[in-house]
């Protein structure tokens, strides 16, 4: 018998007394049976059967063998795997639950890593990179810096390896009737070197290429551009590419996978800062300390903390203030970690990712509760094995370790699956962001060792959540009671079922909170979709032409604009058409301007500002923005006439407090403007916030060569596109419009963050309810099977099936009600965390709560149906057995 040999082999170790004793017992039993005349084989078999499961004795003997820690671990793992294989249903469901929970966290973790913490693939030393932002009078919010200030800051610093300008720019390449927009970065010469990016062909920028007005028309193109546009031409260096009517010499090709330094976009080209005026209609700004346009980073020296660096920068900024009091007074510098970066898309996604992370943790908790529940059932099934092992002298600690090892195995498998799932979903976020003007947003999750570590940590800590309670329960078995061979009601059952009820209630509560949140963001999204931003979204089509990129000066552009408007208005089906320098909810943003108002004295530290838009006559009619008082601009409001403005109602209430402002004056950019009209409020940046103060000025009085075109028409955009292109080509065959879309589409794009939130909360909410339902189902099915005798007895005593149904259902629904109640309390207390992304929806909106309630009750009923039906059909015979 290998058992006996095994036990003998282990005799040398400590703790062997019990095994020897048991061994002797077994041998005596066999001897006795042989003495009674049984054959040795039969005697052995009978004695073993009487003695108990040999496998368990072996396990116990192993446990008592006191071998090395690692050896025990592998034994545990092997045994654990065997146990998991023996119950494949349990294992699969548990792994699935955990995969969802861990995977959800890994997905969001990967997104956070790729978007917030290490946002720039291909860049070395990202952990030493900080965003450099400007401040004004210590006011909240950040602004750009001027070139001279930036250069001075770099010169005065000692704790930095480099200061890097990284300013997003765009240009238009037109071929045939399509205009293609390209995004690029205008960078300081040290850019590539400082970021540790080595071009695969050619070079980066030379130190002298940073300055001199349009003196160095050179460019580094992206790997993708090289491959796609230039078909991987090996002789690409030295060839030229026209950006904004300036021929640029291609001096380098960036390495594959380097996308630039702007979250959300893959850059297609880079030019040095000397080319600033070619990409900025505002003119050459490298000698203007007042012009704030620079966005950029600083690379901290190794071992320097952001606080030390900030101290040095603040001192340098103060020296600049006193050296240039006229322009630099009040200006400060702030260094920010990349994830708080001020100018790219990371900020838009930060709140969404935060919600995503919260939701993922919820899902994980629910999944853990589910697995804990499964383990509790399982430990009941295994109670005999466990009690035998305890009886044979296994220490409780050892037993708990075995159970933990099994849980850890589950968790490890699930972590691997979850990370795989997350890797697969790493770029899913991009799907929520439509491509504006043909430029695709790229939000990629990053799967570096930190995400792996996070996932592993989550996997391990989840074990504590889902395995601790069942393990403790199992090892607390009352031996003498539980050992009795077929005891149906082993002690601890009551405890355990109470525990399982607690878990189910916990799951229900969490699911309810998620459902309410999903309901709230969904309602909010619906509200945003149907709400009016203050202008017509139907029947207004928008597009744009980049005259600046095509090399037009103001004079030529004005003539072009006028003739184009005439031609557009003559297209069949077009009511009106007009131009504006800004488009709501687009990347042609509204300008902000400080202003002074006749008769309004601001507080000493207050600088009144408002947004503005330069528009052509007829803009208000085209956009459907009401003018309750005063007049529209006319063609007479041009460069030579008196400067005029139309102000929004918010602006009126801010500065004139109910007086009629028409005829009064407003000073902007050093010029007084006469107010000729009042416009209804519109929203143009955020659908969530109240309309901001806004004023309009005639386009002719503040001309821009980059304007949006707005057309009121009943024609769909696609139908309009060809006629529009024809009219433009008639004026200049080298030009073409950007995408032609409705204003509705334009506004819709502003809801990306909400749509991500709806998708995340909705998806995870449904998952949570599913998990909770599975939990409830398992609990019910088990409870019914445990109560079979009682139910059978009731049937035998004349209880109708409907009575039994009610009996069982009332238990389940009681738990559900408790869960919902608890979840309701949590939801009421916590949904205001969502308030910043809710539009016209109270965080305690009763509709969301009722909807969540209905879903919960329906799914609870669904989960109970089968067990309850089974209960109602209990055979009275079972009571008698």
């Amino acid at each position, binding site marked *: 018998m290998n058992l006996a040999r095994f036990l003998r082999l282990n005799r040398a170790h400590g703790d062997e007394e019990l095994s020897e004793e048991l061994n*002797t017992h077994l041998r005596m039993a066999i*001897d006795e049976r042989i003495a009674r005349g049984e054959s040795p084989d039969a005697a052995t078999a009978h004695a073993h059967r009487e003695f108990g499961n040999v496998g368990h004795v072996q396990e116990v003997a192993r446990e008592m063998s006191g071998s090395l820690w690692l050896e025990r671990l592998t034994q545990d793992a092997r045994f654990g795997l065997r146990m998991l294989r023996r119950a494949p249903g349990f294992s699969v469901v548990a792994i699935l639950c955990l995969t969802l929970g861990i995977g959800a966290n890994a997905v969001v973790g990967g997104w956070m890593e790729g978007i917030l913490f290490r946002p720039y693939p291909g860049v070395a030393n990202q952990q030493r990179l900080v965003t450099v932002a400007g401040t004004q009078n210590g006011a909240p919010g950040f602004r750009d810096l001027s070139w001279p200030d930036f250069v001075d800051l770099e010169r005065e610093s000692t704790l930095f390896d480099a200061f890097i300008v990284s300013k997003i720019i765009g240009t238009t390449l037109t071929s045939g009737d399509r205009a293609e927009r390209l995004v690029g970065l205008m960078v300081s010469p040290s850019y590539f070197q400082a970021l540790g990016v080595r071009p695969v062909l050619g070079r980066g920028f030379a130190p002298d290429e940073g300055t001199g007005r349009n003196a160095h028309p050179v460019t580094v193109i992206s790997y993708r551009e090289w491959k796609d546009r230039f078909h991987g031409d090996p002789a690409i260096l030295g060839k030229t590419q026209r950006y904004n009517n300036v021929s640029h010499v291609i001096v380098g090709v960036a390495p594959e996978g380097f996308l630039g330094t702007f979250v959300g976009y893959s850059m297609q080209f880079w030019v040095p800062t000397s080319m600033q005026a070619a990409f900025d209609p505002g003119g050459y700004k490298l000698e203007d300390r007042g012009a704030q346009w620079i966005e950029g980073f600083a690379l901290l020296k190794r071992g320097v903390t952001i606080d030390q660096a900030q101290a040095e920068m603040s001192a340098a900024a103060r020296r600049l203030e006193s050296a240039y009091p006229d322009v630099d007074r009040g200006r400060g510098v702030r260094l920010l970690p990349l994830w708080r970066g001020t100018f790219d898309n990371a900020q838009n996604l930060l709140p969404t990712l935060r919600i995503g992370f919260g939701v993922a943790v919820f899902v994980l908790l629910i999944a853990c509760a589910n697995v804990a529940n499964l383990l509790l059932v399982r430990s009941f099934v295994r109670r005999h094995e466990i009690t035998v092992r305890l009886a*044979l*002298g296994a220490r409780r600690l050892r037993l708990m370790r075995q159970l933990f090892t099994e849980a850890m195995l589950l968790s490890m498998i699930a972590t691997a699956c979850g990370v795989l799932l997350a890797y697969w979903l790493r770029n899913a976020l991009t799907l929520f962001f439509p491509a504006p003007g043909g430029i695709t947003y790229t939000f990629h999750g990053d799967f570096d060792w930190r995400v792996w570590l996070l996932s592993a940590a989550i996997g391990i800590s989840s074990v504590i959540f889902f395995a601790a309670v069942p393990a403790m329960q199992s090892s607390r078995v009352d*031996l003498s009671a539980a050992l009795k061979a*077929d005891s149906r009601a082993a002690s601890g059952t009551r405890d355990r079922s109470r525990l399982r009820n607690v878990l189910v209630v916990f799951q229900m509560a969490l699911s309810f909170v998620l459902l309410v949140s999903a309901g709230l963001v969904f309602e909010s999204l619906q509200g945003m979709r149907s709400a009016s931003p203050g202008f017509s979204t139907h029947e207004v089509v928008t597009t744009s032409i980049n005259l600046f990129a095509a090399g037009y000066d103001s004079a030529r552009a004005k003539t072009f604009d006028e003739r184009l408007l005439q031609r557009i208005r003559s297209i069949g089906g077009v009511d009106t058409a007009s131009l504006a320098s800004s488009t709501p909810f687009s990347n042609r943003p509204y300008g902000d301007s400080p202003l002074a108002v006749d008769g309004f004295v601001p507080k000493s530290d207050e600088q009144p500002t408002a947004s503005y838009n330069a528009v052509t006559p007829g803009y208000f009619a085209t956009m459907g923005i009401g003018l309750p008082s005063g007049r529209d601009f006319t063609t007479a409001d041009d460069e030579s006439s008196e400067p005029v403005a139309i102000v929004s109602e918010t602006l009126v209430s801010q500065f004139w407090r109910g007086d009629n402002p028409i005829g009064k004056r407003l000073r902007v950019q050093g010029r007084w403007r006469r107010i000729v009209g009042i416009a209804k409020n519109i929203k143009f940046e955020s659908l969530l916030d109240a309309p901001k103060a806004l004023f309009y000025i005639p386009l002719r009085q503040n001309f821009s060569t980059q304007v949006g075109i707005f057309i009121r028409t009943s024609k769909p955009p696609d139908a309009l596109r060809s006629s529009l292109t024809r009219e433009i080509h008639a004026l200049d065959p080298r030009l073409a419009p950007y995408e032609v879309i409705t204003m509705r589409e334009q506004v819709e794009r502003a809801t990306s963050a909400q749509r991500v939130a709806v998708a995340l909360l909705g998806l995870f909410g449904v998952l949570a309810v599913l998990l909770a339902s599975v939990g409830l189902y398992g609990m019910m099915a088990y409870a019914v099977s445990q109560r079979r005798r009682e139910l059978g007895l009731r049937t035998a005593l004349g209880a109708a099936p409907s009575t039994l149904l009610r009996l069982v259902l009332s238990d389940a629904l009681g738990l559900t009600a408790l869960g919902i109640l608890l979840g309701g309390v949590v939801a009421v207390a916590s949904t205001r965390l969502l308030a910043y992304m809710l539009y016209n929806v109270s965080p305690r909106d009763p509709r969301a709560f009722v909807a969540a309630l209905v879903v919960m009750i329906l799914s609870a009923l669904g989960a109970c149906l089968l067990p309850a039906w089974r209960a109602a059909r209990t055979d009275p015979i079972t009571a008698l057995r």
Partner: protein
Amino acid sequence: MPKKHPPASRIELLQGTLDMLILQTLAWGPRYGFGIAQMIRASSRNALQVDTGSLYPALHRLERQGAINAEWGTSENNQRVRIYRLTAAGRRRLSTERSKWQQLADAIAGVMAPLAENEP
């Protein structure tokens, strides 16, 4: 795991009685584990079968409680065995358990006896 179905003639031990049975068995003299199980089975005319899984935990528990003590010795067949012996405390405990059991048995017998015999 195969379920053990005891033969119909076998009686399940009442909860809490195993300790008493062990103490009673040891009152006749020191014995090792297998001998205790055998003796309980024999004196109950095969009606009581003590599980190994219950016996040894009970023995260790009693030993921890000081009701019995144990030392290694040899069996009649010269096997190395652990021999259990009743202590003074064990003897006292046996007598209280025995009287408790007597009361319980009387009470149950009273309940189970025909009504007429019980009336004065």
